[in-house]
């Protein structure tokens, strides 16, 4: 019995080593290619045939030379991500708290609206939303990207779920002590919600950082676009930007990989938050 288990273990591990290799192969390919001249890529395509004698850091030097907009895009993406995460967490936590802790008129109807927004792909309304953004005068600015998605149904749903585990007697005790309704939220609930803020912060951070379609529609100026939109614009048919494209793509992943290695459990919890719990 024991021997059979060892054989099985070895087979399983071999299987998963192969799966893991296939999984990281595309990223490895990108990483390796970032040390090759862009012209190589034009001539031979993206592959593992690296001539290590000619491999160099020229692409990265070019990236950091400041002769392109790469770091402007990087900064734009960072700013938008931070602002959107902070606003979305705060506002969605308020709404989730309202749904979890109070009974009020129209509560069920309003919560049904949260579910409806979650169920309908946002692509259905990109055209009217685009026109609305023009009317509101926030076209070509980061607010045009952020405002329509500043309250996130997914986060509301998660926070409500998380808070429903906290007994309501808690609130009454605080009320007796003279705490206002908003004081209860700010001083008692927010600290209790810390773990959920971490997971949801990562969920929202990842979707803001990687968002592509909506930022591409809203922002057009070269100095205001976000990193994903900028990288896409480098993929011109003439290929003269491949050096920056490949090195820039690598440099866009690395910070996230480092964060992932440090905060793995939060990442996995946050990015699979929609999953069925219990």
């Amino acid at each position, binding site marked *: 019995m024991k021997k059979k*288990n060892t054989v099985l*273990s070895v087979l*399983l*591990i071999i299987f*998963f080593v192969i*799966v893991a290799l296939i*999984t*990281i192969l*595309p*990223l490895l*390919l*990108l990483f390796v290619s970032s040390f090759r001249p862009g012209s190589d890529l034009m001539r*031979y*395509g993206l*592959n*593992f045939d690296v001539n290590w004698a000619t491999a160099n850091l020229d692409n990265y030097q070019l990236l950091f030379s400041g002769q392109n907009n790469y770091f402007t895009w990087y900064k734009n993406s960072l700013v938008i991500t931070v602002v959107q995460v902070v606003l979305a967490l705060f*506002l*969605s936590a*308020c*709404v989730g*708290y*309202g749904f979890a802790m*109070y009974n009020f008129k129209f*509560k069920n109807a309003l919560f049904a*609206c949260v579910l409806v927004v979650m169920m*309908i*792909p946002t*692509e*259905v*309304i*990109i*055209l*009217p939303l685009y*026109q*609305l953004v023009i009317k509101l005068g926030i076209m070509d600015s980061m607010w045009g990207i952020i405002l329509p998605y500043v*309250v996130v149904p997914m986060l509301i749903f998660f926070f409500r779920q998380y808070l429903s585990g906290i007994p309501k007697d808690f609130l009454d005790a605080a009320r007796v002590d003279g705490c206002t*309704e908003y004081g209860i*939220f700010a001083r008692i609930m927010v600290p209790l919600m810390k773990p959920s803020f971490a997971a949801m912060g990562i969920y929202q951070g990842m979707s803001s950082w*990687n968002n*592509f*379609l909506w930022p591409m529609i809203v922002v057009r100026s070269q100095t205001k676009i976000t990193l*994903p939109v900028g*990288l*896409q614009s480098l*993929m011109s*048919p003439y290929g003269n930007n491949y050096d920056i*494209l*490949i090195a820039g*793509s690598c440099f*866009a992943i690395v910070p*996230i990989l480092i964060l*992932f290695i440090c905060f*793995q459990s939060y990442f*996995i919890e946050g*990015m*699979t938050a*929609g*999953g*069925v719990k*219990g």
Partner: protein
Amino acid sequence: MEKKSVFRKFLYSQKAAPYVFVLPFVLTFLIFFAYPIVDTIVMSFQKVSGGGNEWVGLKNYQTLLNPVFYKALKNSILYMILSCALMIPIPMFLATMLNSKAMKAKGFFRSIMFIPALTSVVVAGVIFRLMFGELEGSFMNQVISFFGMEPMVWLRRTVPVWIALLLLCLWRWTGVNMMYYLSGLQQIPGDLYESADIDGASSIQKFRYITLPLLKPTTVYVLTISIFGGMAMFTESYLLFNGNNSPNNVGLTVVGYLYRMGLTQNNIGLGSAIGVVLLIIVLILNVIQLILNGTFSKKGD
């Protein structure tokens, strides 16, 4: 002064507080969801131009009865079906293998397989576009020539395009779906398997009669997100073809057609009609799913 304090008192009352808390949602829902939905339905019956909108009845919908839109619709539906057919069994299988007692270093492999989910669709698209490049030396051509096949122009003909699209989807989402299944598996009580062992059940029987039925909530969830994600697919194709134009529209989806008509050609009325069609499809899928789930759960009880 008096008035202000009354207002303040009301604002701080237990009765008003919940409305203050949910106000951000109500506002954004009305402005950025309900209004655009109504607006897009109205515009789908109009010719939209700067000078003012003009009612044209069903003309936009009639315009949609064309082969290009059929192709987009067919592509979206096929992508939805194929991605569901891949994105459920494969992650379920991998999760079951990874969760088995004999497996070592589970955490390590779990993390590695999660990594693609961290990359943005743009970076993934860049890599796949270049991997499936038309040059003889590009990675996928090297792979097929290793198996004795001639190098080809991948992103031009139907079957290779679909292989590229589905591999991209599989690469990015297998790890995430596997994670859903792993948490589903961990909620199955271990003693169920122990009693099955005592009854002498084989591994396949255990999978068929314990694992599969108890994973149903996970499967329903993964199916739901795959259906809506699949139906709304656009950016993957946009990046693979570096724009919304693919040879013979092999990679055109419903959202791609909406983008082309509404934003590229500035025909907002027609684009809105496409949005409404997509909305109706999504609503129908929702209703079907609710009915199926409802009846299934009754049987299960």
